[in-house]
């Protein structure tokens, strides 16, 4: 028993399983690579021959009207939905289509849902604790004890997302914005190589938005970030590279200014803005 506890607590055991150790090979090329991915539900073509590459450390924004297939794309990357055709690679080594959600997650892909999903019955603190990057197989999870440096990690993130004084509260009572933050916090606890962030600023106040923007830009470089967002203002404030999805495939790609001047994009978006 004692021994097991030791092993569970020390960070360096089970090398191959601890996410940030996972050898994502980015020496030759991108961290995420989608090629000719297609999927359809009952005849409705949600994703159609989608090609997308994200470089290591890049911050990419993905915009597009409703039904463009943004969320479906995320589902495919995280293993929730299996595409009918195409291939998805994480680095040049991991074929994501062969992996289950937990495996993908432990490879270092973290996701924040469009609708914030936190564990409402658990406290803010516990939410973060569960998210924390560590060996998540059965026995270690059973035996893990709270200790100094774990607490430290969590406090750190609590600071960052500004929920310190609420950390004893059940996540269920948090406001929408706070839930957004909590979920971002959980992402941070996972220490992923690639973050998929779905509409992070929905229901946030101006200054919350700004802080989010800071946070995401701050992350970029160390980690790769993919942001799906409707709020053009927000996108403009963070975006370097923007990809426009339309009817399940890439419509345009480039800097914010390039795409916003792109006639096709304007045409697609006219409906939205008017």
């Amino acid at each position: 028993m004692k021994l097991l506890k030791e092993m569970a607590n020390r960070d360096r055991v089970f090398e191959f399983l601890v996410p940030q150790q996972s050898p994502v090979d980015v020496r030759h090329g991108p961290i995420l690579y989608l090629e000719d991915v297609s999927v359809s539900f009952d005849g409705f073509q949600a994703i159609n021959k989608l090609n997308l590459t994200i470089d290591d450390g890049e911050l990419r924004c993905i915009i597009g009207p409703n039904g463009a297939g943004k969320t479906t794309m995320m589902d495919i990357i995280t293993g929730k939905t299996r595409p009918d055709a195409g291939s998805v690679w994480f680095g040049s080594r991991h074929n994501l289509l062969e992996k289950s959600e937990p495996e993908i997650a432990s490879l270092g892909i973290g996701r924040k849902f469009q609708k914030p999903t936190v564990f409402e019955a658990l406290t803010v603190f516990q939410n973060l604790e569960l998210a924390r990057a560590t060996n998540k197989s059965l026995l270690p999870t059973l035996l893990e004890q709270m200790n100094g440096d774990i607490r430290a990690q969590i406090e750190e993130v609590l600071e960052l997302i500004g929920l310190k004084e609420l950390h004893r509260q059940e996540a269920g009572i948090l406001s929408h914005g706070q839930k957004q933050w909590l979920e971002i916090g959980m992402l941070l606890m996972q220490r992923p190589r690639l973050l998929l962030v779905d509409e992070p600023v929905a229901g946030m106040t101006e200054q919350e938005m700004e802080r989010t923007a800071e946070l995401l830009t701050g992350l970029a470089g160390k980690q790769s970030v993919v942001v799906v967002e409707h709020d053009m203002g927000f996108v403009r404030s963070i975006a370097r590279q923007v990809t426009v999805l339309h009817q399940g495939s890439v419509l345009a790609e480039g800097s914010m200014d390039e795409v916003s001047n792109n006639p096709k994009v304007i045409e697609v978006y006219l409906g939205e803005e008017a």
Partner: protein
Amino acid sequence: MWLTQPLYERSTRIFLGVLLLAMILVTLLHLAVPADHPLYVSAYTVNLFGKYLSYALLAVAVDLVWGYLGILSLGHGAFFALGGYVMGMYLMRQIGDRGVYGHPELPDFMVFLNWDALPWYWLGSDSFLFTALMVMLVPGVLAFAFGYLAFRSRVTGVYLSIMTQALTFALMLAFYRNEMGFGGSDGMTNFRDILGFDLRTDETRLALFLISGVALAVGYVICRALVNSKLGRVCIASRDAEARTRFLGYRVERVQLSVFVVSAMLAGVAGALYVPQVGIINPSEFAPLFSIEIVLWVALGGRATLYGAVIGALLVNYAKTYFTGVMPDAWLFALGGLFVLVTVFLPKGIAGLLKQRKQAKEKEEEVPA
């Protein structure tokens, strides 16, 4: 050490304290008080309490999977009954040649079915240690096989409930068959002694009652430790947002499977304690109705609290004993009504009420401060 951790926790201490107190009290009232005294607790009553305690353990097992894992099992009666049958086989073998046919080896029902030897699956049933092992293994293995298939292919929620029900129903039909070699519809009864102690003496009954109490305590502590651990929190997480938990990197199906198996084993133990106290095990224990009733105990006591399950089990079963005694017709109405009222008006059960009380008090105290 994680297993002992709950012992430093207030609620667990209270629970264990109350349980211990009750056990001592009953023992004293039974032994020390003269039989004609109003406070005297008869062997009959002790026996009843023993039965209730084994039910309580069963309820705790169900609460573990339903309360914390969100899996509504309508088949836990099956694990309970299997544990009971394993124990029954042992007790059957203890009768030896005192059966009506006086056969040294075979139980009576085999003699009259003209069998000349024990079937292979009865081997070892005469050893108590082996039995004690099997009491947990048999339900455990079944739960593993079933759970492995179910959770791997993500059969959850309603579907799982209905499948568990089908499981126990199929087992009931199977055990009703005489060819199975478990005594068919009559099951096993007329037990004589356990570990050499005569089952028909008051001492043995008292002992069984106490053992049931201890078993309940141990089972409770194990479950408590489990739910207090990080794994317990993962359970709750997967109960409320299964997909999210997967995205965090937890293999939810393994968590579900392991907890399900533990719960099944506890149910098996409960069954094994139940049988020597009521003196009969037969296929009706597999009846879906019984399994659903267990869930009611938990619901009444309060989900995801463990102690609530115990309260519920004791209350409902006492009520059952009482009502079927005084007003048999009313019993099913009462039981049925209970189902409705609890689910509609008391979703958090009695434990929920207590909590509310507590919180209300705290608020009052806060106001002046």
